[in-house]
């Protein structure tokens, strides 16, 4: 009969094995992409515009398109999301109907598939508001898509700030906004930044919604009203239309590298957050 200790050992080994499998899958996928993509990626691939629909040349315009779309999405979604979180956590009455409604809306929005956002953005921005397939339409759609993530993470970050900070600050005669700006936001900031960085990851990886709203132009976008192609869209088209699987893997590699960099940054700021909490204890 196994003793409690052998039982523990078996379980530990089991969990270790599961963790190994998960890590293995990640390594396999990334490894395969690196293996297939590395031959394609060089400075020219990064800095040259695509030629012959992407069969030749690089993906420079798609990188620029991705950066534009992400930037527009963040410029819109970050102030709105953080502002909403500050209102919900710091100003509104927690039990109010409006607060409940907004929270429910955010949860629902977070669960909606991106293609639905794409369709909505297509109808609203591209057609109804006549913005056409453009960086603006795409950026606005991405903004709607990441808004719940940014708001939720910012709310969590604000909630993790001890209520005593607020009480002490207010009791010293500080106003509500002074309190938020000086003692609530600073410790919440790393958590908010984590949400923003995760949103960048989602925006960079998004394909369907971008294809529907920003189009898939290979030209270098000159203004916000120009259509653009993101790296993910480029990858999709290269692979789906059989243009060049090689270039698709090259693009995939750069997308993965970009996402890994973003995840690294997210982890870094998360560690700063937990670090500052530990300091308080």
């Amino acid at each position, binding site marked *: 009969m196994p003793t409690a200790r052998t039982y523990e050992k078996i379980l530990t080994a089991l969990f270790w094995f599961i963790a190994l499998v998960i890590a293995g899958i990640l390594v396999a996928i990334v490894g395969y992409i690196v293996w297939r993509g590395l031959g394609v990626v060089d400075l020219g691939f990064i800095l040259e515009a695509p030629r012959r629909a992407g069969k030749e040349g690089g993906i420079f315009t798609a990188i620029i398109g991705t950066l534009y779309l992400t930037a527009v999405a963040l410029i819109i979604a970050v102030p709105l999301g953080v502002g909403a979180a500050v209102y919900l956590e710091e100003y509104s009455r927690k039990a109010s109907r409006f607060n409940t409604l907004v929270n429910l809306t955010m949860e629902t929005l977070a669960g909606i598939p991106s293609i639905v956002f794409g369709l909505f953005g297509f109808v609203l921005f591209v057609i109804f508001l006549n913005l056409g397939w453009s960086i603006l339409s795409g950026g606005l759609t991405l903004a709607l898509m990441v808004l719940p993530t940014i708001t939720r993470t910012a709310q969590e970050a604000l909630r993790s700030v*001890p209520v005593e900070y*607020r009480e002490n600050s207010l*009791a010293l*005669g500080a106003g509500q906004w002074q309190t938020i700006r*000086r*003692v609530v936001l600073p410790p919440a900031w790393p958590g908010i930044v984590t949400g923003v960085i995760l949103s960048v990851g989602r925006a960079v990886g998004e394909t369907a919604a971008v294809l529907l709203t920003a189009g898939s132009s290979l030209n270098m976008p000159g203004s916000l009203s120009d259509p653009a192609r993101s790296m993910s869209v480029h990858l999709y088209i290269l692979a789906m239309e059989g243009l060049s699987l090689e270039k698709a893997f090259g693009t995939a590699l750069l997308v993965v590298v970009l996402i890994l960099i973003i995840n690294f940054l997210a982890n870094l700021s998360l560690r700063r957050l937990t670090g500052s909490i530990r300091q*308080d204890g």
Partner: protein
Amino acid sequence: MEEKIKLKSQELSLFYGTFQALYNINMEIEAQRVTALIGPSGCGKSTFLRTINRLNELIDGTTTRGEVYLDGQPIYDRDVDVVALRKKVGMVFQKPSVFPMSIYDNVAYGPRIHGLKSRSELDEIVENSLKAANLWEEVKDRLGSPAVRMSGGQQQRLVIARVLAVEPEVILMDEPASALDPISTARLEELITALKNNYTIVIVTHNMQQAARISDFTGFFLNGHLVEFSPTEELFVNPHDKRTEDYITGRFG
């Protein structure tokens, strides 16, 4: 010499939603004295304390009836500036809660939010406040280091220095020693006794010996009622109410 009444509550009642936490409290608190509020948990003494700087308003669904007067001025009047009130009425909480910033910035926090920018004036206020809180000697060489690294007793004295820096007239203390070890508690009690020369102090405490040691007046709360309010010695030696006697002799609570 006639004693000056600093604070006065008149028929003060407070409700959390439909729950009544305070019933018609009438109390006069003298200037430059230590007034202790005692009573079992949930009796309303902390709630009463928080009516004096209107901090109960932070809790949704709180309604206050009656009035509190500070120097004869009603503080629940519609046109009262809560910020100005809280500048005059500082508060030290149960759990020392230093802000995640340097020792210096913690003490300078109040003066800064009230608009003081001059570095030399801030330096002076920080030094004087830390000295008044008996903390200067321990921290003068590390004012720039994070306040969260201090010991609990030091943190509580830092919080007091932070309150003093705003130059309040009244200091409310909500069980300030409950998280401290006996030595830190003794130092805090010394500090409170020294502070009463310049400030009016109202302190909520669970510790009856502490109330007896440091206070001039004591109020006994029970189930939201102020049962008895007398000079401390009288209340402990010769309580008028049976319930006060039962409580201080340890028969309940």
